[in-house]
């Protein structure tokens, strides 16, 4: 019986074949924590009384959620993380001014590579599956254990294959494909399983769109969202990688728990209604939804390609007088590039606000919290009750194109409506 990419990567790290359902303890290549999850891990790690972490170059810490410090408590947590990084000489600690949203930053820095096993105390660690790696979110105690031993326990997941055929309609992006997929299978449709995205449409996607898709695997309950590394991947990683990497392919006779096929020519831009990412509708069926705020950013859609699309829609236009648009480039490098390309000018001309990289509003942390009864359209990944603020506020998820167009219109609309 053949093996899937997930089984091959886990097997390669075990030095033997592994099969779904098996519980293994395996070496990891990279372990990640942020300002919210690392403090809990530090408390646990310190109890062990060790002098060092398993490998100071393979632990990555990024304060991004409540950083730049949103208040005194956040400042305390960031300080705790900073001091830990210093004490254990963590080489990949990214301070404010050098940081970005973790899942945009790590690939950009070449820290995560094809064939890796990457764990992160953040559920969207699955983003790196877009590079052909096995990347998954874990908890803080897991992170503490990995920082100590370099190993983690896993159940080898079954794999589910998603094949995307045909070609995409105008304005349809990776975000729309993944929202459509989650809409089809539900928020636990891939629980415990490795999702594998393939087909000619995936091969033609940019790395940015691929990251967006893998990012939201967790929104279907997936353990990871893997895309086989190809020319596009190699082009992306070759200038960034500072160590060897390996590309794995699923065998033709690999066993999948399920196979889903999509005809992309029939997929319209998607909007996920409150309060689940699976609550999706094609843009033509959205109806009359008035919005108070737009957010373009996050680990899902805060990359330069996303900002370019937003700028394409916003150029020469103004944000609706009753709407606040917040745009957050995901990393410092993206921010700088957006300035050089003139995108930030376009945003400010359009009367949007542009912020330094942070998770901020995505998790209702800071920089754009919603009041009671307010509605936002966001390029983020979760629209749970109260996710961006008041429990009686609402979040609609969509692509940067839809978010930008909606902020001009004041209602959720397709870009054609405002261009």
């Amino acid at each position: 019986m053949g093996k899937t990419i997930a089984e091959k990567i886990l097997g390669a790290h075990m030095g033997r074949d592994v099969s779904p359902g098996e519980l293994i303890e395996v070496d990891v290549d990279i372990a990640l924590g942020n300002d919210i999850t690392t403090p809990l891990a530090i408390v646990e790690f310190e109890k062990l009384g060790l002098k060092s972490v398993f490998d100071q170059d393979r632990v990555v810490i990024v304060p991004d959620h409540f950083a730049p410090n949103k208040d005194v408590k956040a400042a305390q947590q960031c300080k705790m993380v900073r001091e830990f990084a210093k004490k254990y000489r963590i080489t990949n600690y990214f301070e404010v001014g050098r940081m970005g949203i973790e899942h945009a930053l790590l690939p950009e820095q070449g820290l995560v590579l094809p064939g890796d096993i990457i764990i992160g105390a953040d559920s969207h660690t699955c983003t790196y599956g877009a590079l052909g790696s096995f990347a998954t979110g874990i908890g803080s105690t897991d992170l503490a254990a990995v920082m100590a031993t370099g190993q983690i326990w896993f159940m080898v997941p079954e794999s589910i294959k998603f094949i995307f055929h045909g070609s995409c309609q105008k304005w349809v992006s990776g975000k729309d494909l993944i929202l459509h997929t989650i809409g089809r299978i539900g928020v636990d449709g891939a629980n415990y399983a490795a999702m594998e995205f393939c087909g000619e449409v995936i091969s033609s996607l940019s790395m940015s769109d691929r990251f967006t898709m893998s990012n939201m695997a967790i929104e279907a309950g997936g353990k990871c969202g893997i895309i086989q590394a190809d020319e596009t991947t190699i082009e992306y990683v070759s200038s960034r990688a500072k160590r060897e990497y390996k590309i794995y392919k699923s065998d033709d006779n690999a066993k999948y728990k399920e196979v889903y096929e999509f005809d992309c020519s029939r997929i319209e831009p998607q909007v996920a209604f409150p309060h689940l990412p699976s609550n999706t509708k094609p843009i033509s069926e959205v109806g009359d939804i008035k919005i108070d705020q737009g957010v373009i950013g996050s680990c899902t859609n805060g990359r330069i390609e996303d900002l370019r699309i937003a700028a394409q829609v916003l150029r020469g236009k103004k944000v609706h007088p009753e709407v606040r648009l917040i745009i957050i480039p995901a990393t410092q490098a993206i921010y700088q590039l957006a300035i050089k390309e003139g995108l930030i000018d376009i945003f400010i001309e359009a009367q949007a606000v542009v912020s330094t990289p942070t998770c901020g509003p995505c998790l209702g942390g800071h920089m754009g919290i919603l009041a009671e009864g307010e509605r936002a359209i966001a390029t983020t990944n979760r629209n749970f009750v109260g996710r961006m603020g008041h429990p009686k506020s609402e979040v609609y998820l969509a692509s940067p194109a839809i978010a930008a167009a909606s902020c001009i219109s004041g209602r959720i609309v397709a870009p054609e409506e405002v261009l």
Partner: protein
Amino acid sequence: MVIKGKIHSFGNDVNTDDIIPAVYLDTTEPSELAKYCMIGIDPTFPSRVISGEIMVANKNFGCGSSREHAPIAIKACGIACVVAASFARIFYRNAINIGLPIIVCPEAAGESNDGDILEVDTDQGTIKNLTTDKTYATAPFPEFMQRLIAAGGLMEYVRIKNATANLHSK
């Protein structure tokens, strides 16, 4: 271990923002987190729950973020055990890692009501609903997880492993 207590019932897809909203993630203190447990769904929950009671939910309990603050808040507010039709993956491992007993049992979850009294025997893998007088069997934990639980959670397991291997502790 036998846990007997009153049930607090919840529905499908209870997510970690429901269990502990992100604004309260600015602390690692269990007693602080306990004050806000489940307030995304029911603001009265922290004040209603009595130590030793049981939480029962439908499918996909704990979906969403990786925040371990969620099982910690549940454990710290006094819930002795969570029974659900299914759990989201990261929540499941977090609960096991911190020693919060959680049990998958779709039948018991589906047929129990808020306020029923449940008796859960984690060793035998049985759940008894004393109100409806029904008994359910659950799958035992795999051997590896039993070892984790027997060690007292993941960190104890690591401590034992480290002591044996004498890993970089000098």
